[in-house]
């Protein structure tokens, strides 16, 4: 029984280690030109990745992964004050809370939340560029520059979801719980 519990804990550590590595890799792929430009647009895969983790993980780790992803983004950003970390932490918290209290866990929910996260981020960037850069609100830059980035980011949602889901499934506690039930032990351990 004890060994089964240990295995469950070990799986949890492996899952979080793998997710951390995934966050580091995706952050690097986003800032180093690993992903090809499509019609001149670069992708922002950290946004859907954070949403996928928040949807499929528990709340506390989801918030920490959101902060980690944002800090990695900030470390390679021309304005390293931590705005991305703040934004992604809020996104992770909101998504995790919505999943706990309101929404169901499925691909449509992830798509909806990712689109909202990417849309709000790009809208904020456009407004920030417009006001802090003193360039004014130019709808053409929103259409020509930000819309293709939004579309490209959303295309990367599917691989992000598949990767995170794969990691979470491989290291899920369900099988361990089933094993505990089979051996007649504490079956309600999941809570």
């Amino acid at each position: 029984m004890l060994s089964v519990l240990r295995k469950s804990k070990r799986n949890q550590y492996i899952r979080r280690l793998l997710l951390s590595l995934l966050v580091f890799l995706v952050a690097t792929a986003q800032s180093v030109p690993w992903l090809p430009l499509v019609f001149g647009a670069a992708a922002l895969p950290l946004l859907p990745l954070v949403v996928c983790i928040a949807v499929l993980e528990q709340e506390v780790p989801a918030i920490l992964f959101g902060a980690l992803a944002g800090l990695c983004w900030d470390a390679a950003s021309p304005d390293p004050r931590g705005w991305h970390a703040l934004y992604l932490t809020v996104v992770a918290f909101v998504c995790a809370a919505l999943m706990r209290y309101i929404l169901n866990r499925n691909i449509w929910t992830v798509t909806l939340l990712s689109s909202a996260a990417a849309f709000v981020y790009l809208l904020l960037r456009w407004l920030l560029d417009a006001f802090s850069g003193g360039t004014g609100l130019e709808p053409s830059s929103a259409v020509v520059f930000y819309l293709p980035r939004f579309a490209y980011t959303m295309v990367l949602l599917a691989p992000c979801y598949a990767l995170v889901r794969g990691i979470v499934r491989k290291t899920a506690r369900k099988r361990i719980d089933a094993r505990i039930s089979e051996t007649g032990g504490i079956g309600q351990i999941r809570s």
Partner: protein
Amino acid sequence: MKRFTKTVAFKTFAAVMAMLVAGAGLSLVSRGKASPVVSAVGWIVSPLQTVCSSVANGFADFFSFFRSSAVLQAELNKKEAELNAYRERLVDYDKTRQKLELYEQFLELKKENPQHQFEEASIIGGDPAGQFGGFTLNRGSVSGVSVNDPVLVGKNLVGIVAAVTATSCQVKTILNPDVHVIVYETATGEIGYTETTPALAQQGLLSIPELLRSSAISGGGQICTSSEGTFYPADLIVGTVQEVRMDDQSLSAVAILKPAANFESLRDVFVLTSF
């Protein structure tokens, strides 16, 4: 709601947000320094990015070699082996030549201005959501880089250091509307300042506004930094005038510039740490 705010998740969220907001606040107060939390993560991420950037560049060179090789192979089928050896040498030669050109330009600048202190740096990342081509370099405060240091490639001005962490720094290019440079036209000596808009920046162009309608500046004129500015030394090349337009609203003329630095092919640059 009360129960919600007492959950572990909410408390964790509040603690993380407090830490990040404190970091951002400190960064804002210190003007240009990175948030301490971001700096700490930067210590881990910057070396990883340097390695990944090298791998990415290596792959790009590798595939460009095979693309070129395939074209030449069709033309010279019988000399395949000879050709491959030649291509390998050519790739090495091109790399060395590019590096040599960079250092020649640097040497020329150093000879003209012996008091200038430079730090060679490589680009390790960019901002995919940025409109103005900002990027991250693998040199930080440990190497003597500080905020507002000019960034050059040869004698061409690329931009200015906007923020510094211990091992990396973030650069805003001259295509960023936040960056203004006091410049002069070499032939006429007329002084102005550069600015840009998102529309111009997307075309890779700058402008010099508020010139007199009687300005003698014309297409092809060379634009350099003026000694009247404080952030840049004099005579760095900013760009070439493409055209001069009349601005009907302000009754002045606007010169449109093409920057001398090619931002798309940048890999290695120099940071001017002292001048």
